[in-house]
């Protein structure tokens, strides 16, 4: 059977090849694809086992230029190629200024000031609005960024394929082994942390106003069910405006009911479309809103129940409480397992003009004191540091007890799943389901 897009005399495969050809011309991924990227377990090689053996394995989806898509059961070590080597040991700091590429309001200005004091180099921040935009601009190469903040496991393959990152020299990063969760020192998406170090982590969960909702959501058998019982809060309920996060939510609900671990990176069209249909039920139940402004609407009471990123609730509690409303009216619950966690990177740009200073900045942000300050004074997203402890933060009165679960724990991070880059085909299934859901 032909695919509807197989038209105009060219087959879809030919078209994709043409597309890939164009990508190679742009990103030069071909060189990398042919290089020594090593992947570990069974059936993990990009092309899969050859010949007869190939028939015995379901092929894994592949990324750009045939690069492997990292998964927890398919860890990837990205090659260090001859023309893109890490800097040598013991080099002196450059004068700067350090060019940082980041989401808006995603680094504490006071922490940055401290860095400037320490190094004498000023920091210049340029911001982007979406990972797509960031990668497109990095690929265009208009500005040589030293440090790139905020991209995730769902972007790593694109970053490697387009050769946008510089490999790291760990002799400049003593804080990585010293302070960071062991599970993120050698992550499956970048074995050996060759190109990335973790900045902050977060999880998907439920944010709600405990003064407006009677239910104790955290105590429910399947807390996600609250969305399907939200008739009384019609018009005041929201899900995250992000196709991967939102469609994963009904998948997690099903998993909690059946006890079967879901694959939140599935490329099975039927599973994804089923999730979309379940999500669509919320249109009738509560006229669900699709937004990412929960950090503001929950504190203001314009929504009372929202599918939320953990950090949103903390930044909401830090900054968006209206006069006379105490932050302890906000509650957050996130699953202990089978849910969504995500991890933002700190990377050094391939064309960095100040690579030593950039490494220094990475190490500075991995310092336990700086990571802590950046977290509690500004960002609200948990740094994956051994020293961070929700109980201690509550004890110090920094966060209300009702938001203890918005601080991601290492065991939670390990038992939940990261949303990772999909193949082009897989991505299409998610886009289709999302477009159907959003059409109402």
């Amino acid at each position, binding site marked *: 059977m032909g695919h509807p897009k197989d038209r105009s005399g060219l087959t879809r495969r030919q078209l994709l090849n043409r597309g890939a050809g*164009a990508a190679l011309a742009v990103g030069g991924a071909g060189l990398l694809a042919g290089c020594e990227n090593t992947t570990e377990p069974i059936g993990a090689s990009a092309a899969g086992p050859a010949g007869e053996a190939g028939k015995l394995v379901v092929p894994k989806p592949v990324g750009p230029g045939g690069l492997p898509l990292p998964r927890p059961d398919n860890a990837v070590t990205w090659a260090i190629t001859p023309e893109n080597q890490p800097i040598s040991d013991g080099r002196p700091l450059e004068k700067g200024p350090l060019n940082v590429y980041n989401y808006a309001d995603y680094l504490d200005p006071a922490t940055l000031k401290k860095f400037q004091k320490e190094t004498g180099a000023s920091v210049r921040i340029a911001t982007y609005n979406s990972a797509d935009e960031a990668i497109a601009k990095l690929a265009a190469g208009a500005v040589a960024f030293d440090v790139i903040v905020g991209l995730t496991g769902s972007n790593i393959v694109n970053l490697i394929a387009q050769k946008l990152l510089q490999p790291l020299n760990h002799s400049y990063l003593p804080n990585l082994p010293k302070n960071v969760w062991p599970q993120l020192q050698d992550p499956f998406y970048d074995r050996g942390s060759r190109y990335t170090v973790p900045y902050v982590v977060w999880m998907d969960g439920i944010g709600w106003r405990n003064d407006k909702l009677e239910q104790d959501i955290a105590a429910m058998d399947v807390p996600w069910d609250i969305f399907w019982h939200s008739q009384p809060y019609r018009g005041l309920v929201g899900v995250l405006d992000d196709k991967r996060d939102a469609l994963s939510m009904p998948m997690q609900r099903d998993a909690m009911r059946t006890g079967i671990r879901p694959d939140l990176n599935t490329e099975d069209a039927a599973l994804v479309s089923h999730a979309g249909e379940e999500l669509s039920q919320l249109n009738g139940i509560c006229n669900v809103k699709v937004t990412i402004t929960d950090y503001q609407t929950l504190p203001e009471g314009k929504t009372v129940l929202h599918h939320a990123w953990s950090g949103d609730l903390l930044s909401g509690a830090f900054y968006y409480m209206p006069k006379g409303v105490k932050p302890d009216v906000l509650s957050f619950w996130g699953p202990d397992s089978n849910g969504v966690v995500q991890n933002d990177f700190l990377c050094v740009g391939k064309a960095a003009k100040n690579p030593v200073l950039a490494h220094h900045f990475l190490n500075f942000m991995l310092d336990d004191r700086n990571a802590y300050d950046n977290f509690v004074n500004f960002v609200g997203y948990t740094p994956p540091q051994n020293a961070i402890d929700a109980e201690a933060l509550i004890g110090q009165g920094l966060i209300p007890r009702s938001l203890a679960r918005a601080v991601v724990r290492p065991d939670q991070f390990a038992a939940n799943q990261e949303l990772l880059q999909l193949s082009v085909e897989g991505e299409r299934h998610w886009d289709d389901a999302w*477009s159907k859901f959003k059409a109402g």
Partner: protein
Amino acid sequence: MGSRWTWRFLALPGVAWLGVFFLVAFYAVLCVAFGNQDTLSQPVPFWNPLDWNVGYVLDVLSNFRHGGQFLTVSIRTLEFVAIAMALSLAIGYPVAYFAARHSGRWKGLVLVLLIVPFWINYLMRMLAWINLLSANGWGTRILHDLGIEQLFIWTGLLSTRGGWLDGQPSAVIIAFVYGYVPFLILPLFAALDRIDQRHIEAARDLGASPFSAFLRVTLPLSVPGILAGCVLVALPMFGDYYTPDLVSASTKTTLIGNQIDQFTRQGSEKVTGAVLTMLLALVLLLLMFYYLRTTRRAAQEAGA
């Protein structure tokens, strides 16, 4: 002779501007819509029309044919725009009529007042509504006190008291009318202001009642203004996606612009986004042709 060349020369920057930023840009959209995407999910435009791949276009068309989500949002967009346009006209015509014919020496002031909304950014005006229409907002209270809220609840246009921002189609339409009505009033004012007073006097002298004179003389003569105003408000409404996002964010108010936004900015299906952009542009082009034909005919009739 010399003056003709001067004018051609002066028109050059504008023509070049349109050429580069409209024709070339639109051709690029076509090449993406009839192109493909690479393994980075980035669009690969096919610049040579002979290479064009119709797969994505046929895919979107088949979605329409089978009553898929694109049909749903397109019909919804048409409904919203039609209602908002009719309301804008109902509100805008009397205002323009008054300003043109009855404001007398206050005409200048009235004109300034009509332009004032343009001083404030559209987005700002929409954000203001969010506070006005929130559950405890001033707007909500006034609408309640005036009984308008009750009227909306009776007619099923509002589901709960104070729930204007709960994801209501009516809120999006009201925001559209509020945001775009000045664009309708101004061309209408110009058209009504241009009508030769003597035509109406003649009608009255020949025994027409004021209403009949309006219906048979003023209204037909203002048709080009009505059409120009409607085109000016309809075109941006068709592509609008931030108004429904701001005042509703419900899936019930997703318009075609939201779907294009989703595919091009948030999704990995930029080619599908380009196809939708192209189809929307084609529909708008048809409307434009209708407008041009009607105004030309009206001009000919006026000339005759």
